[in-house]
């Protein structure tokens, strides 16, 4: 991948998520959240709590796992620890923490006037800084050390669907206008879910790129959009935080290149492609 990474001046990006899953900190308890917030509250003075996220692993060679089923069966024995959201004052930045997960989000609020501040200049450094803060907290308090087992990076795009959810070919090169059974029935909406495996140069399985395209409506004006979510998830090649960042760099490059390849040149003009 020696060509320059594609870049858009006005990408339809609505949210960027960088997350790392690690071996659960066994002695993490509800008081830990209070101590943690002391470290994070200057940057993230607001708090919310959410249901915890299930462990998620990209594997190969077996059948898809039944995550919802497993959750029902086994992981209901003890009261689950919640997932904490520490939120910035402008609501655009947040960190999510639970005993086995750290996630750093940037999100557009109300759509206008808050363009994505870019991966290299902003997101990468903020993610690493907040992750290092969490890791040092675990080590200083004797709770343990982050041992990453999966990494995940997601770009969530809100793409204008003009007037309806029945015409994806204007945006997405994988949808053909030859799909036409309008003499029998009209397309009402389109929902796509595509998985790609990512391998190293040596052919080893590294993880997956998940592409989801689904119809949605803008919260601000209820206009129809396609929500296009690109996620790269997999195992970092080592146990250090630098390995996590290396995975994020790979994931981000994969996502941006894939986005440019699967969207039409017509839309690239709208999003002001720079390279």
């Amino acid at each position, binding site marked *: 991948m020696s060509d320059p990474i594609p870049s858009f001046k006005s990408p339809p990006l609505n949210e960027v998520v960088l997350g790392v899953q690690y*071996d*659960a900190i066994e002695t993490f308890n509800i008081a830990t959240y209070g101590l943690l917030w002391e470290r994070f509250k200057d940057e993230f003075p607001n708090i919310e709590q959410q249901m915890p996220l299930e*462990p998620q*692993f*990209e*594997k*190969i*060679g*077996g*059948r*898809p*796992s*039944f*995550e*919802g*089923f*497993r959750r*029902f*069966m*086994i*992981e*209901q*024995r*003890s*009261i*689950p620890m919640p997932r904490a959201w520490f939120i910035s004052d402008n609501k655009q930045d947040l960190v999510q923490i639970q005993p086995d997960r750290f996630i750093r989000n940037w999100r557009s609020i109300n759509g206008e006037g808050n363009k994505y501040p870019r991966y290299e200049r902003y997101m990468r450094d903020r993610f690493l800084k907040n992750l290092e803060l969490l890791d040092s907290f675990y080590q200083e308090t004797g709770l343990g050390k982050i041992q990453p*087992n999966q990494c995940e990076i997601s770009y969530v795009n809100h793409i204008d669907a003009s007037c309806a959810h029945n015409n994806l070919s204007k945006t997405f090169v994988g949808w053909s206008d030859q799909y036409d059974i309008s003499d029998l029935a009209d397309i009402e909406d389109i929902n796509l879910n595509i998985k790609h495996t990512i391998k190293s140069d040596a052919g080893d*399985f590294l993880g997956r790129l998940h592409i989801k395209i689904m119809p949605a409506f803008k919260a601000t004006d209820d206009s129809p959009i396609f929500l296009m979510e690109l996620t790269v998830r997999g*195992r970092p090649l080592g146990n250090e935080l630098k390995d996590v960042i290396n995975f994020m760099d790979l994931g981000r490059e994969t996502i941006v290149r894939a986005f440019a390849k699967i969207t039409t040149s017509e839309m690239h003009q709208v999003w002001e492609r720079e390279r």
Partner: protein
Amino acid sequence: MNATAETFYTLPNDFWQDANSVRQIVKQENSKVVSIGNGSKPKWLTPTTRRLFSILALDNNWDSYGAKRISDRVAGAVQDLLWQIMQKNTPAPQVVPSASGSIQLEWHLRGIDLEIEVESYTLAKVFFEDAQNEELTWEGDIDVDLTKLVHFINLLTNRVQQNTH
């Protein structure tokens, strides 16, 4: 309802009386009904699940030699692994807790010995031996690539099926 976690924990024992429950749950949660087939639950599911629940009820020092309590996470990893590698007609494994906190799955059937010690979602120690084909003997760690494990399970399932018919 202001139910406690304990209430949910006891629910599945009754839940499994309904042969279609798996299909309904899977359909509701994930729409991945295809590999379940015919709407009936896999043969291994009920005995394995019951055994897992009984293992989860063990407390610290359950062997009186300081054994670790089996964590929900390891049991979840077992459940996750079984869903990904098992065929519908694969015989149920013996499910054995270990003092270190892992769970061992064992089959000793029709000349095949297969042992899988699940330590976490991404680490299973595997031993496979086939009396009919010694070249297939294998011992090692499985992480995220389940290809070899699926192959062993398929050999075991087919062997048992052949001897049944």
